[in-house]
């Protein structure tokens, strides 16, 4: 319901009451000075630091969460300027051959070899940074074979033949 305009209020008593309420309140200067002094003496409002604690703590926790919960960055693919080409070859009668190693998170699906024209030689070219890498071949998805042309790893911990490659 819309408000009734003041000039349409007929009741004189009501008009006086409204006028009184609209009159600015002037406090005695001494009263105002004492009130301000009390406020200063009381210090900051009680709830304010609590809110700051919440805000600061939550922000800190959020930052910590973002830093700690962030999944480790996947290893970036080596760039051409820092890597060396490495050719792996395996002679094996097979329908598919893959290589797994330190350079591809030991993922059997990551690095398939390509069969050459002779039908039994499989090759793949990797681009690796200087370092020492362990690897092995997976033949037809079910047999492990070390690299006959590579060094055998001393640290073969899991039973399968593992070779080692040094990139200079």
């Amino acid at each position: 319901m819309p408000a009734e305009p003041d000039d349409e209020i007929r009741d004189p008593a009501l008009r006086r009451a409204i006028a009184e309420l609209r009159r600015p309140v002037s406090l005695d200067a001494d009263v105002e000075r004492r009130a301000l002094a009390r406020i200063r003496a009381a210090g900051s409002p009680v709830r304010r630091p609590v809110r700051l604690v919440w805000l600061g703590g939550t922000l800190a926790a959020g930052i910590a969460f973002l830093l700690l919960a962030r999944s480790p960055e996947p290893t970036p693919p080596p760039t051409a300027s820092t890597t060396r080409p490495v050719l792996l070859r395996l002679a094996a009668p097979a329908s598919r051959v893959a290589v797994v190693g330190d350079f591809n998170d030991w993922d059997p699906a990551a690095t398939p070899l390509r069969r050459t024209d002779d039908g039994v030689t499989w090759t793949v070219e990797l681009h690796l940074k200087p370092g020492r890498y362990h690897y092995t071949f997976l033949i037809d998805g079910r047999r492990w074979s070390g690299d006959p042309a590579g060094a055998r790893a001393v640290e073969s911990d899991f039973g399968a033949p593992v070779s080692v490659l040094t990139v200079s």
Partner: protein
Amino acid sequence: MQAGWVVPFLLVLAGRAAAQDHRLAERLDPPTAAAVQRVVDSAAHEGLPTEPLIQKALEGGTLGASGDRIVYAVGALHGQLGRARQALGARAGEADLTAAAGALRAGVSPASLQRLQSLRGDRPLVVPIAVLTDLVADGVSPDEATRSVLDLAREGRPDEEFMALRAGRGGPAATEPGGRPPLRPAADPPVDR
């Protein structure tokens, strides 16, 4: 006031729980992944490289090893990395430390690694250490292998000559396409998965 820290504390705990390497969580069973992650966290706290530990765990997972065996292998590598850093110092990089850990496991002495480091100066150690390790793995006595490698290092020889030393004993000669030795029949029969 105290309650104000409860939620942030829980968030931090949740964050820590979620900080597990996603590769471990995806490729290993939960107890094994958690145990490996503890070793990884410990290594990180000590300033040791963690990626070799993760790769060792992934190797075990792919090769079908049991969880206990994976955790044991990762723990052993953690110890070897720690001994490698004792030998080479805090400034040694990840590649050098990883190579040195393998050398120590093969039977090369920490003193030999330190001597090699002093002879090489600021040059990377990966290739000489790898050649030393491969020679020992091939049956050359650690003393003889160390003497051969240190001789080259003393003369300031390039990495290619270390690789040639390895190739001279029947090892792989180079790492570039066309540089690999001819295919040889497999020394070991393939192992079923």
